């Protein structure tokens, strides 16, 4: 078991190193940050000086090595644009992204599970087919289009929700939350719905497939034969049995949502990590880009590693050969 753990963690670290390496490869093509940092009146000599001072003139491997050494000690440097410590900037933005992702996940479960059940037990009914069809649209609509349509309908035309921002936030220690104020809750709704649309479809299709599988099982037939009411058969017995994969998938998707929230965050000016990253790209703020990519890949890798370990704990076959 110990050997298995060490192997998994070593794997995870290798993945992180690879991500950082590719990130640095890309940075060579995003342009020259110094052009954005100095104003029009700076001379070429001043520009060259600043480049040298920031270490941008060093070779690729030297820059990469320096980044990995510093990052391993938790030092991601200072943002070129904001002149703040990168780690602090990201910590400041993390709560916004995390709340958005959690609310989006709750919405996707609350809507996706009932829809999945309905389309499974009423297979063939016109509304089931219609929902199936709509779900395809849900998957294929780009999220910035969804966001803008939501803004036009609910902010401009109906005036119900704000078009951008987090509303009012409350500070609890280093964590800022918008969930405790009315304005904050109103502000999170549109971006969360926009982010959850894809997820709803995913949950609905998964629940439907699992339900169809379970409904064919013997214990459902026996329950029906005993005269248990359909509602109880469906929701208490069948649905319970197909929630395991839904929970696993939802946990795994949180990493995805955090990464893809950047489009939603840009449309709604949601001050989260994704918006920070987009701004960093615009201004060639290399320290912020590098740290963001590393932290997001860390979240992915950590979630995956934890799931793997959990599976290994539950199922001895997975560690049998190796451990």
């Amino acid at each position, binding site marked *: 078991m110990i050997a298995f753990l060490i192997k998994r963690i070593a794997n995870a670290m290798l993945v992180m190193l690879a991500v950082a390496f590719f990130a640095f490869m890309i940075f060579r093509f995003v342009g020259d940050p110094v052009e954005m940092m100095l*104003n029009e009146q700076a001379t070429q000599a001043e520009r060259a000086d600043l480049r040298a001072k920031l270490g941008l003139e060093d070779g690729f491997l030297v820059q990469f090595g320096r980044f990995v050494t510093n990052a391993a000690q938790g030092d991601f440097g200072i943002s070129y644009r904001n002149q703040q410590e990168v780690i602090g900037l990201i910590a400041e933005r993390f709560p916004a992204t995390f709340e958005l992702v959690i609310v989006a996940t709750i919405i996707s479960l609350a809507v996706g599970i009932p829809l999945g059940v309905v389309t499974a037990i009423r297979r063939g009914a016109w509304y089931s087919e219609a929902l199936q069809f709509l779900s395809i649209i849900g998957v294929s609509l780009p999220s910035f289009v969804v966001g803008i349509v939501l803004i036009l309908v609910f902010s*401009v035309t109906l005036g119900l929700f704000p078009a951008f921002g987090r509303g009012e936030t409350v500070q609890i220690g280093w964590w800022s939350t918008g969930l405790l104020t009315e304005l904050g809750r109103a502000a999170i709704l549109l971006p969360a719905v926009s982010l959850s649309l894809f997820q709803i479809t995913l949950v609905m299709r998964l629940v439907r497939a699992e339900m169809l599988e379970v409904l064919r099982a013997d214990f459902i037939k026996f329950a029906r034969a005993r005269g248990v009411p359909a509602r109880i058969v469906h929701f208490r017995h069948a649905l319970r049995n197909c929630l395991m994969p839904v929970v696993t998938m939802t946990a795994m998707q949180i990493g995805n949502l955090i990464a893809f929230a950047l489009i939603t965050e840009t449309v709604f000016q949601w001050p989260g990590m994704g918006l920070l990253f987009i701004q960093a790209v615009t201004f060639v703020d290399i320290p912020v880009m590098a740290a963001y990519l590393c932290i997001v890949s860390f979240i992915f890798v950590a979630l995956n590693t934890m799931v793997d370990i959990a599976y290994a704990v539950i199922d001895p076959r997975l560690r049998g050969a190796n451990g």
Partner: protein
Amino acid sequence: MAALRYALLAGVMSAALASAAAAETFRWGSSRDIGSLDPYSYGDSFTINVMNHVYEGLVRYDRNLAIEPALATSWEVLSPTVWRFRLREGVSFHNGNPFTADDVIASLKRVSHADSPLKGNLPAYKAATRVDDFTVDVELNGAYPLLLNDLTNIHIFDAEWLAQHNAEVPTDIAKGIEGFATFNANGTGPFKVESRQPDAKTVFVVNPGWWDTPQHNLTRIEFTPVSSAATRVAALLSGEIDFTEDAPVQDLPRLAAAPNVKVLERTDLRTIFLMMNRRDELAEGGKNPLNDLRVRQAMQKAIDLELLRDRVMRGKSRAAGMIIAPEIPGYDAELDKLTPYDLDGAKALLAEAGYPDGFAFVFNCMSDGYVNEEQLCQAIASMWARIGIEPKLDIAPRPVQTPKRTGAKADVWTLGWATLPMLDSYSPLIQIIHSRDGNAGVFNWGDWSYPEIDALVQKASVELDRDKRLAMQTEALRIVGEEVIAIPLHQQPMSWAASAEVDEIPQFPDNKPRLWFVKK
């Protein structure tokens, strides 16, 4: 019935009270955030513009962009290299500290420090000495007529506050240590910083102790960056913001049609022109035809400026014959004549120069640079194709394109120049047209050299008589036109949009909102 009447009355009254209180809050939805609260942190004129509500300079621009006294009340030139400034008495910083000569000296030192990204904004500065509490002598490297123009953008900090918080020098990013002035501000300006959340909201409140009589009636400014253009438009339509300085061109008709929004349009001081590689070889090798005046003239004649204005810019730009706008000192209407579109003439000139079959070259444009730049470049490329030359369009974001431009990997490129912050034709002449030499010709990316112009610019740079100086600059600009060193295109349009509740908001041609002139 009486109860109903009271209820109605109460309702009307509370509505009136609410609007009276809210009317003075001005919500600015900007297309981008400021870099930090420290105006000397990042070479970014937008940050300086926004922070100008908090910090002031010794002099400032008035409603007509003429220079007027601000923290200095008067000045005299003691010798060509020493200027004496008398400071305004009775001014205090937001923290209550009085404004004195020491503050001026500390601020000038800070902005000219080796680590300051803005030291180029005050190129002539050598040293400052205190004469008494309210008199400062500023010593310069040499005679320099545009000191006041530069000083409009040099914000004055409180020396004591800087010392107390260890912020006397600008933040050095390479050291990786945060600076106090990045998160805190203490100026003398009409507004104070109340709070700041980067990328979310920065709140300014009115400074009741401001030394000047306010011409605005705002009590609070909520500055919110909304980077997505569609969201910004939606927020304006739904009344969540009162103003944006960047209304997208494609949404202007829709904004203008909305009853609660008004659109403000005019042309910017920023003049867009094309510059050319003048080295011996083209970017991709081979002899450079752009060194032949006839080729440059042919390329100029092949561009239909009116068509560009009417179609690409939707009639909103002003076609230009000079590289500066009419508002800029040194402008001459005689020189601002458009070169007529002449396809046959262009072809004849090319043939005469020995390129009847044209030649290929790299045309470098930015995707996020100037208004409608991509379409503009595509249109120009197809106009050039008609005379048989083959521009290879290379379009990418600014940070990617600039190294190519400075590194001789482009033959023709777009450049926009507003002459900011000095608002004088000396700015493009020294920075773009002058030969590359130390501080001069920083934007001379094509390595051209006209000794005649250099001599004029050098003479102008030390000429303290304004009329004589401007005459020299105009003469230099005449040569720029005659030699087709640049091909002027237009002054680009700028569009602001404000809520109908905003009564007065002057739109400045330098595209900088100055909210201390706003009435709501």
